């Protein structure tokens, strides 16, 4: 059998000396599935009927070859054990404190070790239902799952990320198509009945040649990002700045995106870069925001 180089992953070691590790065909298939399908796969031993994850090509107990017996697992599971890592060392993937948990994925028999975020340290417990959150950027490693988060709907309010949970590079966005009625409603809300927004004949004479939406209308789409996604519920916005780059026409689909760019350690505030783009990937506006992320939830009686 010949093996193509591209079928096999190489992992770079982090040591002073470089090492490269080969995941093997079985491990590579698992990693490719994570990367391309965002699917976690298990391997079933037909002798003991156990479904294993992480992948391995033999059942070490039965000594049976299992490398072909792929099974789709759910991207969610239950925490069967955990620890909160508070000591800081260079080999750690994120800055402590962080939660490392044993997570038994739905459909698997053996738990997988991974990071859990989005739950206050004091509220972490065995039995919690969590789901995989995939990394924005693939590293072709187990870190393609960035972390696990509690499955929504369990707590009364799904609070946003706290200062400690936020990391530079995390981002979130919200998209919406701007319709004619949105513009009319916004005119009513703001009192801005400028005919360039409402009167097509007038608008034909402007440089835009047709009606455009109020500048503040697409800009307001960043509010659901900051307030409900990143950092999320409990966020206080201190400052939002924006510079308009291109008009928004009726029917345009605007995506507002916020990305954490700086953590202000002293105040425990977070600075975010904002962008608004349309369906043609044109930059509609850009700016920045300064926010106070949600505080960790107070201890509550169960």
């Amino acid at each position, binding site marked *: 059998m010949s093996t193509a180089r591209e079928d*096999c992953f190489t992992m770079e070691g982090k*040591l002073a*000396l*470089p090492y490269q*590790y080969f995941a*093997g065909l079985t*491990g590579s298939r698992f990693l490719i599935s994570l990367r391309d399908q965002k699917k976690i796969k298990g391997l079933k031993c037909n002798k003991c009927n156990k479904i294993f994850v992480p992948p*391995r090509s*033999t059942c070490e107990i039965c*000594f049976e070859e299992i490398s072909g017996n792929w099974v789709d697992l759910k991207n969610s599971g239950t925490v069967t054990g955990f620890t909160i890592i508070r000591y800081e060392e260079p080999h750690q993937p994120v800055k402590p404190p962080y939660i490392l948990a044993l997570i038994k994925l739905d459909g698997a028999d053996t738990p997988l070790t991974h990071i859990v975020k989005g739950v206050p340290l004091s509220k972490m417990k065995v039995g919690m239902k969590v789901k995989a959150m995939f990394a924005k950027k693939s590293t072709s490693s187990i870190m393609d799952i960035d972390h696990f988060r509690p499955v929504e709907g369990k707590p009364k309010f799904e609070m946003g990320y706290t200062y400690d949970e936020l990391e530079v590079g995390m981002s979130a966005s919200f998209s919406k198509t701007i319709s004619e009625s949105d513009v009319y409603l916004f005119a009513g809300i703001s009192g801005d009945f400028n005919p360039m927004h409402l009167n097509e004949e007038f608008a034909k004479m402007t440089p835009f040649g047709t009606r455009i939406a109020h500048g503040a209308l697409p800009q307001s789409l960043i509010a659901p990002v900051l307030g409900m996604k990143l950092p999320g519920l409990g966020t206080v916005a201190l400052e939002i700045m924006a510079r308009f780059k291109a008009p928004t026409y009726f029917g345009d689909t605007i995506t507002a995106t916020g990305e954490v760019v700086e953590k202000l350690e002293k105040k425990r505030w977070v600075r975010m870069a904002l962008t608004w783009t349309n369906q043609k990937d044109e930059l509609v506006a850009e700016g920045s925001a300064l926010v106070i992320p949600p505080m960790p939830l107070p201890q509550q009686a169960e």
Partner: protein
Amino acid sequence: MGSKKKNRNVGIVGIGETKFSSHREDVNQPEMIHEAVKGALDDAGLSIDDIDCVVHGNMELFEMVHQPDLWHTLGTGAYGKDAYRLTTGGTTGGTLVAAADNLVASGMYDTVLAIGFEKLQEGHTTGGITNMADPLWARKLQSGALTDSAAVKVIAEFGEERARRAAMIYRIIMDKHACLNPNSHRAFGLDWDQMEDLMTSSPPLIGDLRLIHMCSQSDGACAMIFASEERAWEITDRPVWIRDHITIHREETLNLCVNYYPNETTHRFAAEKLYERNNIKDPIEYFDVFEMYDPSAWWGVDWLRDFFLLEGDEHLKLVEEKEIMINGRMPVNPSGGVIAANPIGATAMVRVAEAAKQVRGNAGPHQIPRPVNHAMASSFGGTMWTVLFMLEKELNW
């Protein structure tokens, strides 16, 4: 000579080797080991449940995995069993066989699986552990001027012309053997008419050590199963018996020992002691095959004298008269030896495995074409470390 009768006899009952190659991207470390383990179990007709104890070894920093037997449990079958880990540099594979022999002979375990492996491709490539850079690796091992010392020594004693020819004859014989062995990592198909050309055209490394003389750099694993006499007869009708083994190390850290005792190589010292306590008077007469850990052709030539306790130019004659060829008087490395494949943690075990296959008579295309009853296998590591084995077909010594 201090050697007593073993507490009980130990037989080699299963042998598994992966293909040796410069690259194995298709498997990770435990998977590669598993291939060899599966091979040994199939060879013995055993299942993993029949194994009492697993012995594992390699060099941690070659792949930078701390105590890799822990992770490798996925492939070794050690789960739920007694498990040991030993590592002694290049001699590791030999030490693992010696350990397995001791563990079975002790009566503590009836059936022991020993596994040596290396996945050098995963190692420190920029540091030079690649195919091309074998001499760098050797330099690391050999600390400075020792590297081409064998060449210097042989040349000083026998003159450039004769020494260079002998080294190249040795090299071509090894390649001819490697071409017979389907498991070889490197087999070029060299022939006698290329001798003159190779002696001048192969890239020089250090002094008279040329690239063509050096061993390869390989990925691979070897697994062997050892059983007590009683178990061995249940498992196979042709166990190969480990008659004796000896380990001799030498490495000066205190700088006290320069030339004071004994003034000979560990190979010669080990051979003398081993023959003495086993009453072997004429090793060339006695042994039917010798699998030698020969990191380069120069060492191979030079060490023949040490291992067979030869004098003068007897060892050169063995080479020049091609007596070490597979059909010669004293076949050496019918497998092709270390120059043909060198997965370091497994290499020394492969010597024992290949010697045992010759005794069994089922080595394959490189089987010696006459009966093999007595075999010797050597390991080499460190600056000058030796493990030496005697294998027997019959329990009659």
